[in-house]
């Protein structure tokens, strides 16, 4: 297993741990529709679903502007999938930022497990198209950490409106 694969699995592990915490289920699509993980809110009225494109990186920068953001170079193909407006369900990017050394990704303390550094979400729907051929740098607000409160809020909005934005 190469490092990229290890990083992807870390993202899946962290995201699904949060799903477990709030009682959401998840599934992986057999076909490649540009979606890695579908999260289902089966306890909500409409069984809302949010499709996630999962990315993980050790190469990122945190810029302290007005609001702190993570800068990340996203593949153009993924970007084009995520900016689509005419889709049934919200599609979000979930980025895991990880230390370079996998040995310190997870640390077990007495009565506690620590995962570094964290996962962040962003909704790119409706963003302008790009002429870049390889990657495009995107900004993810540091405030968009994907935790149980954020995921619950997202599910509630999707359940109510069918969309996030």
């Amino acid at each position, binding site marked *: 297993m190469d490092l990229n694969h290890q990083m992807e699995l870390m993202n899946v592990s962290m995201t699904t741990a949060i799903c477990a915490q709030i009682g959401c289920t998840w599934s992986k*699509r057999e*076909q490649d*529709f540009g979606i890695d993980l579908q999260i289902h809110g089966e306890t909500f*009225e*409409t*069984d809302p*679903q949010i499709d996630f494109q999962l990315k993980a990186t050790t190469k990122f920068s945190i810029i302290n502007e007005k609001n702190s953001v993570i800068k990340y170079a996203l593949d153009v193909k993924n970007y084009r999938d995520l900016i*689509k407006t*005419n*889709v*049934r*369900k919200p599609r979000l990017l979930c980025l895991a930022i990880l230390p370079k050394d996998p040995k310190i990704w997870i640390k077990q303390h007495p009565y506690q497990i620590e995962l570094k550094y964290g996962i962040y979400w962003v909704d790119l729907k409706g963003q302008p198209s790009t002429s870049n051929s390889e990657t495009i740098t995107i900004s993810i607000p540091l405030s968009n950490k994907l935790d149980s409160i954020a995921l619950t809020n997202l599910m509630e909005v999707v359940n109510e*409106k*069918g*969309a996030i934005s």
Partner: protein
Amino acid sequence: MKTLDYNLVKADALEYFLLSYGWVVVKSFKNGVDVWKSKRNQKKVWVPKDCTFDDYEEAIEEVIDVLAFEEQLSSEEVVLRLKQLYLAKDLLQIRVDASDIKSGNISFNDGVHVFNSLKDIMLGAVKELSGSFKGLKSKFMLDTDLGQTAVGSYIVNAYLPLLNELDTDSKQLQLDNLDGETIGRKVNKTLINRLIKLKKIIDHYSDTNSNVLIQELLTIGYTKQECNAVEKLFGEVGNRDWQVKVLWSHVQQEPSNQVSFVEFSKNDAVIVRKISEKLKSTDVREGVSIFARVVGLKRDHALEETTGTVTIKSDIGDIECTIKAEMDDVCYAIANDAHKRKKYVKIEGNLLKARIGKLKRFFMRKVTSVEVVEGDLDILNEDPQLLLLVSNSDSVEN
């Protein structure tokens, strides 16, 4: 899911499909997406109201997965039914079961037998109606599509056309132009009815009444070829059960009181083999005219359409033949009139000669016209087709 043409599964068809399984819309979002809920386990699926959505294909995939799970069907079955919806055709399934059939495999020989048998059974039904609809045979067979073979038993799926016009090149029927019963639907009903009749005859068969029952089969137009086709479906050693099911297309109202399923068990194989052995040959001459005397009349009110069987005697060449002819009410009334007035009749239809064991029998199925011959009969039966058919037989037993 590669066998499905996503472009043809329109949003309204998808909606109709879910409704037909009793699913309901629980919420509609402003962006044009409906949330559908199943009646069973309350599972939900998000379906766009038009197919311009970028993830429309994905929506179809989800509908297939969720519906298969909720309705306890295989994904292949759901795909077949979705396909039926956009093809606007009845779906006929032949399923052959036996302990020696392994999952996902069909031996070449068995496959050939099953497909050929289906073709002959379909041709039997088509021929029954081809007198009334010119060009039906070629159009019906051309427009029939085969579906995929599912994993498990051998299943052959055939999408049977509904056809309301025989002179059009159009393969796909529009969903809104099917009023009344189409010609194709008549064929499809005939096909299943013929098999049901065969099953009834098998159930009543005994060595003492075999000739009578075989003649009954012949009066509904069964041929040696069709009997052989049915026999082959039991497999080479006759150890297979098989079923035929028709799923009626939703684009046309489902026929009322119509049985759609018939099942044959391996125990029937022995009887079908006996029938097939006894029925040595059948030979048909289409569209012949015969001058004959009416010697017997019998009506059957028990069938869906009242029919009568008229026995006629005719001199063909120098051989006297007894022919059982089945006809509708009008033809029957004319034959009855001729019988009362002791007049000859000119009768037209397809003449079938059958050799049942050592006997030879003549049948005229679906008589197309009957005329009373006024005055003396001065015309002989000189049709070369007729003479050839009769001369092939050594003698005719009445």
